[in-house]
């Protein structure tokens, strides 16, 4: 599977503006009207790396790209405490469990 960087054909250190430009170029060549799935892939790639926050989240929580041992090492060796909020912790936990589908609620069911 291609990484968002490969889909948009941008360097891993590209700036927000470069990523936006690349995204618009791709959309121009692949309008949603022509090939919806292709467009969704492009848009998905864009939303996952469009700004600092999403790139960090992509790097941290995307399976299997994240190396948790290394992340843990990093966390233990940086002076600043890692910024992992409850939301991220849940995602981290899920990623650790290898569960790609968040199971978050039960449907309302009538007693039969």
């Amino acid at each position, binding site marked *: 599977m291609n990484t968002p960087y490969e889909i948009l054909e941008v360097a891993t250190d590209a700036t927000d503006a470069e990523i936006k*430009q690349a995204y*618009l170029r791709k*959309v121009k060549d692949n309008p949603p009207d022509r090939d919806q799935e292709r467009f*969704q892939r492009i848009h998905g790639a864009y939303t996952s790396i469009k700004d600092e926050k999403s790139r960090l989240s992509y790097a941290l929580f995307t399976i299997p790209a994240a190396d948790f041992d290394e992340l843990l090492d990093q966390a233990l060796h940086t002076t600043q405490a890692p910024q992992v909020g409850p939301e991220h912790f849940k995602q981290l936990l899920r990623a650790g469990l290898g569960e790609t589908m968040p199971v978050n609620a*039960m*449907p309302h069911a009538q007693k039969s």
Partner: protein
Amino acid sequence: MNEIIIGIDLGTTNSEVAIVGQGKVRVIADGDKKILPSFVGIDDHGNILVGETAKNQYLVYPERTVKSIKRLMGQNIQIDLAGQSYAPQEISAIILKRLKAIAEKDLGQPVGKAVITVPAYFSDVQRQATREAGEIAGLEVVRMINEPTAAALAYGASQAEAKRMLVYDLGGGTFDVSVVNIQAGVVEVLSSHGDNHLGGDDFDQQIIEHLLRHLQNTYHVDARAHSKAMARITRAAENAKILLSDQPYAQIEEEYLLEHDGSAIHLSLELSRLEYEAMIEDYINATLDAVHIALKGAKLTAADIDEVILVGGSTRTPCIRERLFSEFGFEPHGEVDPDLCVAMGAAIQAAMIGGQQVDTVLVDVTPYTYGTSAIGTLNGEFYPFMFVPVIHKNSVLPSRKTDAFMTSHDGQEFVDVSIYQGEDPDALNNTLIGEFRVEGLRDVSAGNVITLTLDLDLNGILHVSAQEKATGLEKSIVIKNALSRFESAALDTARQRITSLFGHLESNPDELGEPEPFEAPAAAPEIEAARNAMARAESLFEQVSDSDKEDMVDLIGTITACIKANDIEGLKEPVDQLNDIIYYLES
């Protein structure tokens, strides 16, 4: 040769049809009129009237005329028109059929496909109804696009530099606001918000109520029971509103409006712009709240917006421009005719779908959150109808999201899935748009995983499927509550019914070659005068003696026959006689 796809703006008060030809967008005129009033009526002989003629008839025969049908789209109701009942889709189809015929006449060839615009804030049901209207009219609706987006396309197609625009679209019945980024040939909608029951009609209604109060206070008469008087009051209110766009005062004069206790009541009242603006202030405030919600949805502030685009006839109201000016600090734009730019955008999108070389690509979003209900918590308490959003507001179209759920009982044989549209954490406060049951589940303990997939297509129509994960047992639906009356057989019936209505007037509107003139060609001044006299006479019916009325009815019959036979000479005598009677009655 490319296939012809027309672009249609099917508005609450006015409709237009446009096309891209030789690289240029053009709104197609019917005669010299580019705007077709969205009025449908039936005349004395059972002929169907669409547009200007129906709008004129509204004054005399409100019971045989329908206006603002768009406000009822998606509702499961029947509209009475000259004793027959019609679904809102059928009335809209009549307007679409006329627009189709206008385009066919201009292009000299049949047209079978269209891009139709809908308010961004139109719900799933309203979109389905619009598509059905197209089908009844014999048009395949290849795409529905949002009105503010279409306007942005019309403006943005020529933009070279990157721009962020806010489109403020206030029409006759609906309000939309969209934040749009135009850059590198891509028109990208960042957020949309709106209200699908707010528009110029509400402004008219405020004036109408003001006039009714005036009549009540001055003459102690309730005009609501008099349908003809109401039609005149409605027109007077609309005219006053339009006047107040340019002038500080409007004088409302309706003589012989109705009779009360044996005396004729004349409506005469001056309305100032200030009074009017006070009446509509709440509505304007609501639109500005929506502007802020849209900005927030795009994660922008007013300072990030480079241009404000005004769309829809109601944006001619001066206080709207003033309020937007004070909000954004610059004048909003209205260079492209606010009545026409939506149809132009639809034509651009139509050309793109039809394979023509167009340098603008459109990326739109949904203004609604879609989700389901599940057992969960609400405000920290156990609650069986917790709303679980699946596709969030302002998601890019098309959008496909899957979520997983579990059964709650051991040996549960089925799950009932409800799909809601809205933002409230309590699903019951949102709009239920569809329900279905997945049955025949495995006999296992609670925790059987069911995946739910919501797929929102480019038209903003939702497709839903649910699957038992372990077995692949699947159930899927397209949300189509509006279709209850309109399964495809019913659509065919409706199509024939509407076509036969047109058959009264046009030899065969679907066969090309020699398109018939659609309405009586521009009426001779004598005919115009005769119609006025008849309208005047009929407005007096309620207050004249039976013998006078009988004379008038006879004369009207003679005049109508002359008009039908186009006998201008023969008109003179009965019209003169009728005018004499009117003069006698009114003096």
